[in-house]
């Protein structure tokens, strides 16, 4: 694999992780977490673990983002810390 691609994806993973931790809006944090898990899925597919990448794409980027959004919908959207 071209190393520039891997570097860009790794950089995006780090940026999405730090953004999901630092953002104040919980809905935005859950969306950033979905982006993080999709980038992680790409990274695993690059490394050759296709089964793990499949699981990450379906569970991490698909269902868990929806569950986070549903939980945010039922609780508050702003964090206090």
């Amino acid at each position, binding site marked *: 694999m071209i190393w520039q691609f891997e570097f860009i994806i790794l950089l995006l993973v780090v940026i999405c992780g730090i953004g999901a931790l630092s953002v104040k809006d919980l809905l935005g944090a859950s969306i950033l977490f979905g982006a993080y898990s999709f980038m992680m899925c790409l990274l695993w597919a690059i490394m050759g673990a296709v089964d793990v990448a499949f699981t990450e794409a379906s569970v991490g980027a698909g269902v868990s983002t*929806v569950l986070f959004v549903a939980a945010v919908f039922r609780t508050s959207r702003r964090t206090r810390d």
Partner: protein
Amino acid sequence: MFETAVIFSAGIACLILLRVFTPKTRASRLYRHKSTGVTIRIEQGGKLPESSRDFERIDSSWVPYDMIVNTGCRLMVPFIQLFALYVIAHGHHSPGGGFQGGVIYGSAVILYAISMDLRSAVEQFGEKMTAFSQFIGCPALCRHRLPVPPAGGRIPQLQRPGGPFGSRSDHGPLHGILIVEVGVGMAVMAVMASLYYLLSSAGKFDEGL
């Protein structure tokens, strides 16, 4: 296969923690006249147009109605379900399997619930059905004690000939694995759907996201 035990206990724990049984007295409800789009509110004790064809019930916190979203998601849902069945059925010799296919099937149910309504999704795939699927799918764990298939007459086994830790080889009793995968897929699909129902409706199964 222990992912089924984990996901099963997660579903049961979420059910115990979140499910609330509301008393019979209800708050006011909103109804929409289908052809004109006029929304009416019926207070507590009023007569409900449940059997009327002209009115449909809408959520009090999520009123927007979009025909494009409805129709597009209704067209997409069967194909997502077909893809999930493909992933389950081809899990032996390609990436995928019962867990991933079950998650994709559950996300199809969730997409239906988001695009239409929580109540219409519960009407299709209700609470009793989710519990039943979980309890049917979970005994797939006891893989050596599966019932003997009537035709073959031998107990399906998950372990294949080959190296340790389930290293893949092309010869093996694939039908037993397929039964286990279908069971895992059913359990995971039911757990995903019931997790979404419980989280989005705060345990009431009435009005949701």
